[in-house]
């Protein structure tokens, strides 16, 4: 056997006084870290396989387990970190492209954490959401430039279809295939109960979930998996996926091993065949071509549904968004470089794209400057981690936010970033029946509902503090924001002043 050049990332620490050898850890670990040795009458761990998903720690009835960072370190080097060296070893061994999951974990600035919110004092009293009405309802879609009335007072303005959200939060696109059936069911039911929307991703829509169609955004991506008339008609809106924040400029690839019977039926492809989403839509090389796809989807659904175009936040995002706003799309979704993924090449995930905060600020400004902000709603994604991120995003100009990672955390994800292995011990990013059943959709959907209810209340608290009683009055209200520790250029792009100004 070849010499192993790199060391396990984690150490499994078992408190032998506490361990009762119940073997629950061994039964729960799909990575086969734990096993019981009958001859020795003891539990044995193989740290090499551990991904630090914390499943065994949570399940251990006597709290006997801890997963800690392996204290063994390569010699310190500020340039060649252990991670960088390990990646070289892996590639030298396999010749493979490094594949990672979930969002970019690198130490880039998080601008949400460098923006502070305002609150009213003395002159403009704060509002207490427990006592006074607060409006978090938003409508996504085109807004008419002006409104005219008939003589009898009725509105004489042609409006286009919109999405009505009870609170400015939606669940991001995650395909059936990349996540499990129970995860999808949890998202669908939660969206329905909350009066918001979840998104099928590009893997089609399982027949059992057509009943949640009124709260479903159906996605059309370059592979067109599961896209047909009923699918388009079932959704409340159609999203064209042009890009994804975790992997701008490249396509998707669900390995054949994950295409089991149910996923195959939903994607409408044979079992065991790779589901390849090409990097581009091969019929879209221009804004005019995009317009053609937008309009063909509208034609197929008789102009009854808003069309969303989702792009990754990249360097020229403002100009691209301006084009999309003229393409006939109703909503632009922008996914920042910290957005999650079930699998992406490490180098792409960690090095391509820009922060959503900067992308949002420049897109909103550009659309305003061009007088076309009303043509589209702007939805942002790519690491919205809390209600304060939502409030800051809206004040920077967003109409609503997509949450993906936060939703998965609500379902039990511990961000071990190993989705690509298909062995998710939490039953989320897996198709193995024994693992999927660990996620109970009855509990999962409740946890999602709890999360969004809590955020909704926090949004109201923060708005109330600012003396604002509706999301509409917060949107693009950058006076409510101040930067901290940001340079002149960053403040200029964000369109905000520094704290103290």
């Amino acid at each position, binding site marked *: 056997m070849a010499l192993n050049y790199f060391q396990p990332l984690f150490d499994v620490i078992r408190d032998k006084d506490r361990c009762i050898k119940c073997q629950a850890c061994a039964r729960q670990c799909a990575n086969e870290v734990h096993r019981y040795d009958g001859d020795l009458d003891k539990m044995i761990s193989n740290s090499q396989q551990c991904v630090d998903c914390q499943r065994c720690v949570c399940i251990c009835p006597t709290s006997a387990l801890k997963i800690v960072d392996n204290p063994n370190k390569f010699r310190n080097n500020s340039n060649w970190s252990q991670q960088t060296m390990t*990646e070289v070893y*892996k*590639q030298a*061994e*396999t*010749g*493979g*492209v*490094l*594949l*990672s999951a979930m969002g970019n974990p690198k130490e880039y600035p998080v601008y949400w954490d460098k923006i502070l919110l305002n609150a009213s004092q003395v002159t403009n009293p704060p509002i207490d959401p427990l006592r006074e009405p607060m409006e978090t309802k938003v409508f996504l879609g085109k807004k008419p430039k002006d409104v005219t009335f008939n003589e009898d007072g009725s509105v004489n303005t042609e409006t286009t279809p919109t999405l009505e959200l009870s609170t400015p939060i939606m669940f991001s696109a995650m395909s059936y295939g990349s996540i499990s059936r129970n995860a999808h069911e949890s998202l669908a039911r939660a969206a329905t109960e909350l009066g918001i929307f979840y998104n099928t991703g590009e893997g089609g829509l399982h027949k059992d979930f057509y009943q949640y169609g009124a709260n479903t955004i159906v996605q*059309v991506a*370059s*592979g*067109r998996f599961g*896209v*047909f*008339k009923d699918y*388009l008609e079932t959704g409340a809106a159609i999203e064209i996926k042009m890009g994804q924040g975790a992997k701008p400029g490249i396509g998707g*690839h669900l*390995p*054949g*091993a994950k295409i089991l019977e149910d996923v*195959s*039926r939903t994607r*409408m*492809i*044979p079992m*065991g*065949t*790779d589901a*390849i989403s*090409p990097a581009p839509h*091969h*019929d879209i090389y221009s804004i005019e071509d995009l317009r*053609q796809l937008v*309009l*063909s989807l509208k*034609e*197929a*659904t*008789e102009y009854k549904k808003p069309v969303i175009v989702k792009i990754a936040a990249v360097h020229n995002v403002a100009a691209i968004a301006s084009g999309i706003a003229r393409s006939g799309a109703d909503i632009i979704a922008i996914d920042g470089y910290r957005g999650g993924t079930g699998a992406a*090449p*490490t180098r792409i995930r960690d090095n391509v794209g820009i922060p959503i905060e900067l992308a949002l600020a420049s897109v909103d400004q550009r659309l305003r400057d061009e007088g076309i902000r009303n043509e589209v709603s702007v939805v942002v994604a790519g690491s919205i981690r809390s209600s304060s991120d939502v409030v800051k995003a809206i004040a920077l100009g967003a109409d609503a936010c997509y949450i993906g990672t936060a939703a998965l955390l609500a379902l039990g994800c511990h961000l071990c970033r*190993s989705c*690509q*292995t298909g062995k998710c011990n939490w039953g989320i990013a897996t198709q193995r029946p024994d693992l999927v059943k660990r996620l109970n959709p009855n509990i999962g959907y409740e946890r999602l509902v709890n999360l969004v209810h809590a955020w909704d209340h926090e949004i109201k608290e923060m708005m109330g503090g600012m003396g604002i009683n509706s999301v509409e009055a917060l949107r693009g209200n950058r006076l409510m924001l101040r930067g901290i520790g940001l340079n002149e250029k960053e403040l200029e792009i964000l369109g905000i002043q520094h704290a103290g100004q």
Partner: protein
Amino acid sequence: MVINANEVGYYDLNKKIVECTDKDITVTGAMGQRYIGCGVSGKKITVEGTPGNALGAYLDGSTIIVHGNGQDAIGDTMNDGEIFIHGNCGDTTGYAMRSGKIFVKGNAGYRVGIHMKEYHEFFPKIVIGGRVGDFLGEYQAGGIIVVLGIGCDGKVPVGSFCGTGMHGGRMYIRSDDAPQGLPVQVCCEVADDSDKANIREYVDEFAKNFGYDTATLLKGRFYKLSPNTASPYKQLYTHN
């Protein structure tokens, strides 16, 4: 019912087609109107003239006959039905089509049959009479593409990069020589009698509609292209 498309925009034209209760509709004077027959089921639409892009996109079980040339994205994501083009057609014909049939009498552009896929009873078929441009059957994941090369004098009737990313389905190309520069995951062999028997039905339908003789068309040499793996990129990655 006959609908005159002269000086009618695509929106109004398609509204008329969708709202028309007749099953048999003839559109005359088409001049590039897009999205004709988009998502339509249970109709027969005959188009005189030149329909625009995305003809029969998401088609869900209708027949479309074009007496003229077609443009780009014919039958995009088509689910079922038949499209007959009595002329040439443009790029991405049959993009991601899942079932049904497309017959083109003349030539077709780039990326014909890109990402065609099959599933259970869904099995898409494309027959092109003349030649096609680059990237034929790119990412093909199912179904059958036949290129007959009529008028090519036995020369290879497909452009470069044929079968790039192909991981399902079959292509049959009538040619004296095999296409050059095929990717490693595509097998290319001379079609035998059983292969020809597999495509006889579609070649026959082509011949009957466009005035050719099936036996003559099938007499020549065909090359069969098929993928040697359903997982072409399996070895590409290292878990990190």
